[in-house]
C-alpha cells in the first residue's frame, strides 16, 4: 500500500483493462478449482481447501475490483477488521458449541420432525 500516496491525487485512477481481464480469468479458474476439489475426497480438508480458495477469490475481488490495492489503506483496515470480528464471533461460538455438544447430543428434541 506504499503507493497509495502517489495515487492520492490521481483522482480518476482507472484500473488497466489487462488487470481486470486477468483477475476475472483467475476468478473463473479458481471457481473451476473449487468445484474440482470436491471430486477428490480429502476428509475434513475439503472444507478448508474450499474456504482457502474462496478467500483467495475474495482477495482478488477486494484488491482489484474494489480498488483496495490502490485505495486508502484505511478502507482495507475496515474490511479486514469486519472479517476479523466475524471470525472471532464464529470461533468463540464454535468453541462454546464443541464444549457443550456432548450434553445436548442425546437431547430428545434432536431427531424430532417439524
Amino acid at each position: 500500500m506504499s503507493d497509495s500516496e502517489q495515487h492520492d491525487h490521481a483522482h480518476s485512477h482507472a484500473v488497466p483493462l489487462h488487470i481486470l481481464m486477468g483477475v476475472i480469468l483467475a476468478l473463473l479458474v479458481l471457481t473451476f478449482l473449487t468445484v474440482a476439489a470436491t471430486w477428490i475426497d480429502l476428509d475434513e480438508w475439503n472444507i478448508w481447501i474450499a474456504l482457502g480458495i474462496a478467500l483467495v477469490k475474495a482477495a482478488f475481488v477486494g484488491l482489484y475490483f474494489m480498488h483496495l490495492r490502490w485505495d486508502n489503506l484505511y478502507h482495507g483496515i475496515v474490511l479486514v477488521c469486519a472479517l476479523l470480528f466475524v471470525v472471532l464471533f464464529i470461533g468463540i461460538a464454535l468453541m462454546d458449541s464443541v464444549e457443550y455438544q456432548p450434553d445436548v447430543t442425546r437431547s430428545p428434541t434432536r431427531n424430532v420432525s417439524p
Partner: protein
Amino acid sequence: MSDAAHSDHPAHLAHHFETSEQQLASAKTGMWVFLATEILMFGGLFCAYAVYRRNNPEIFDIGHRYLDANMGAINTVVLLLSSFTMAWAVRAAQMNQRKLLITMLVLTLMGAFGFMGIKYVEYSHKIHLGIAPGSFYDPHVDEHDEAVKEEATPEAVTQAPSSKPQVPATTPLLPADQQSNIAPAHAAPLGMVAAETEPHDAHGKYGGGDHGHYATQAELDMAFTFFSIYYLMTGLHGLHVLIGIGVIFWLIRRAVRGDFSSEYFTPVDLGGLYWHLVDLVWIFLFPLLYLIH
C-alpha cells in the same frame, strides 16, 4: 448551489467539500463502513451455519443433495462476470467513456437478472418438492415418488452422465437417528455424496439410494434446519441482488442523462463496491452450501 458565487465550483461538488477528490474519499469511507456492517450481518448467518454444521454434519450431507451444484456453479460464473463488467463500468466512468459505461452497466444488470432467474428455478424446484422455508417445510418424497423421480431424472442425467441407471432400493435404510450415529462428523464419505462427485460410488455404501443422490423421506424430514439456513442465507443474498438491480437501474438512468464524468463518478464507484460485496458473499456461500463433501 454552485453557480455564480463560485464559478469554479462544479455542480456535483457539495459546498462543504474543498475538492472532488475529498468528496469522493469521504463517500468511499462511508461506503466501506456500510460494507463492514453488511459483512457483520451476514456473519451472523455464517455463524448459525458453522455451529449447526459442526453439530450435525450428516444433515448437511443430506440437505446439500437437493442443491444443484451445476446451477450454483453457473450462478457463480454469472455473478463473477457481472462483477467484472461492473469493475469495467467504473473504469469507463473514470475515463469519460459514456457509451462504454452504459454498455457495461446494462451487461451487469443482465447478469443480475440472470442470477435471479436461476435462483428462481432453484427455489421453485425445491418448493415443488415441499422443501419450503420455515413452517412451510413439508417435503414429500415418498408420497409423490413418481413425480419426484421425474423431477429428479433430468438433473441426475446432467449431473452424472456416466452413472448407472436409477436402481430401486435394495437395502432398507437405517432409522435416521442411527444413521447419524454411525456416520459421524469426519468419517468416510457417506457414499451418497452428490452423483457428480463420485459417479461410481453414488449408489454405494449408504444402502442403495433410491433416488440416485437424493435422500429418503426420513432423512429429509430431519433436514429442515439446514433448509432454513439455506433459505435465510441465499434469501438475504438474493435480497441484496434485488437491491443491486435497483441501484444499477438508477446508475444507468443517470449515465444516460450524462451525469457522470472523470470528474464525478462517485455513485458508479459506490454502486460498484456494493455489487462486488454481493459477489464476495456469494463466493463463500457457493462452496459452503453447494459443495459439501
